[in-house]
């Protein structure tokens, strides 16, 4: 199993013009996933430790303590997988 499959339960494209992608981490692994991501990405802003606005390379995304993240402006699923692989490794 790849690292993305190891941590990610499912991804969901948002409904709306934005075409964002929601990543839902596996419940039992969400805290570990969040810690890994916070180590790799740059925290631009945080609100009460609940939500983090992050940047990683040219990507910006928000990570929620509930174990969900919202990625913007991704070209496709391959790009999402590549970013997640790096963030979670």
């Amino acid at each position, binding site marked *: 199993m790849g690292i993305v499959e190891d941590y990610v339960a499912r991804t969901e494209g*948002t*409904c*709306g*013009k*934005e075409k*964002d992608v*929601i990543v839902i981490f596996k419940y039992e692994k969400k805290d570990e996933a969040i810690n890994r991501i916070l180590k790799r990405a740059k925290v631009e*802003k945080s*609100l*009460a430790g*609940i*939500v983090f*606005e992050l940047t990683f390379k040219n990507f910006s995304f*928000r990570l*929620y*303590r*509930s174990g*969900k993240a*919202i990625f913007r402006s991704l070209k496709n699923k391959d790009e999402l997988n590549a970013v997640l692989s790096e963030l979670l490794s």
Partner: protein
Amino acid sequence: MLDPYKIREDFPILERKVNNNPLIYFDNAATSQKPRQVIEAIKSFYENHNANVHRAVHTLSQEASELYENAHEEVARFINASGMEETIFVRGTTEAINLVAYSQGLHNLKENDEVIVTLMEHHSNIVPWEILSKIAGFNIKYVDVNNDGTINYESFEGAISKKTKIVCVSHVSNVTGVVNDVRRIAKTAHEYGSLVLVDGAQSVPHLPVNVKDLDADFLAFSGHKMLGPTGIGVLYGRREILEEMEPFQGGGEMIRAVEFSSKTRRCSITWNDLPWKFEAGTPNVCGGVGLTEAVKYLKKVGMENVKEHEEALTKYAMSKMRECCKKVKIYGPQTPTAKCGIVPFGVDGVSSHDIALFLDNYGIMVRSGFHCAQPLHEVFRLNSSARASFYIYNTCEEIDRFIEILKEIEQF
């Protein structure tokens, strides 16, 4: 007045926690939660009465048939239809609309005919007509929506003509909660000889709905939005129209006879009586049983009480959002009395999906996106919206908690 605290005791799911917070369910326009009575009825059906309906002589089939037929009768009484012949069970509102679109579109609509659809419709009342117009060649005319989300009646009156065969309109918008004057639309449509199809997905669960008062020819609605199970919905149709209509799908249950002629080497088919003529194949018997209990539950609560409670919650939510939140914008009508219990909103600088994710973090469920109504969002020039929608088990305390979290979101 209904007592939401008493009602909450009937809904086991409301006891659960999400992210260590009590569940606050404000996504009722998408689907409602189910009371214990509905859950028990479904369980009891499978434990005691499960069988295929009709054309069997054994006890279980007769019991199942009786329960399924009673479900039609119960629903017919709930919307004041003339009888169960006028209530066809389908999978949901979408299938109900498709039934009318395919049956009318393939057999009764032709080139130069027109179908009128409003721009506030759910995709389920747009897409079937677009598909069928390509097959049958009829034209679709869209009715404008005003900036406040109300229907533009002048646009409707300008669009209708002798060419109009069907007018398709939501009773209540699933985005804004706007209640349309269906009676006014039906009166005009009938003067031009047009049929009227009403999407009642957001009205039947929340308002007293009487098909005779509405003067609708068709009314489509879903069981799962009115405390019932998923996979069961209703198409009400005026008896004389349904009798003339061709079936939507073919198979068992919807025929009286299929006779093979050795002379022509073809089968000649006689349709079954209403409503079975439109219910091909083994129906969702258990769904019907669950829907019966849901209808009984709503009748016991009283639909006037449901309406009043949701109006009070909507009024409370809108006034609190205005009073306590500086960056929150409410879309659609600004007067709670013009609408049902739906509040679409946004927060300046925050996407609707971030709003929904943030609220979810605190166990509050709202929907974000287009809500299957992209054309209406284009009218509003919105990329998407967040939507809080209420039902009989929601309380002002839940709204207070929602407002608290909205204030946090504003800080982002």
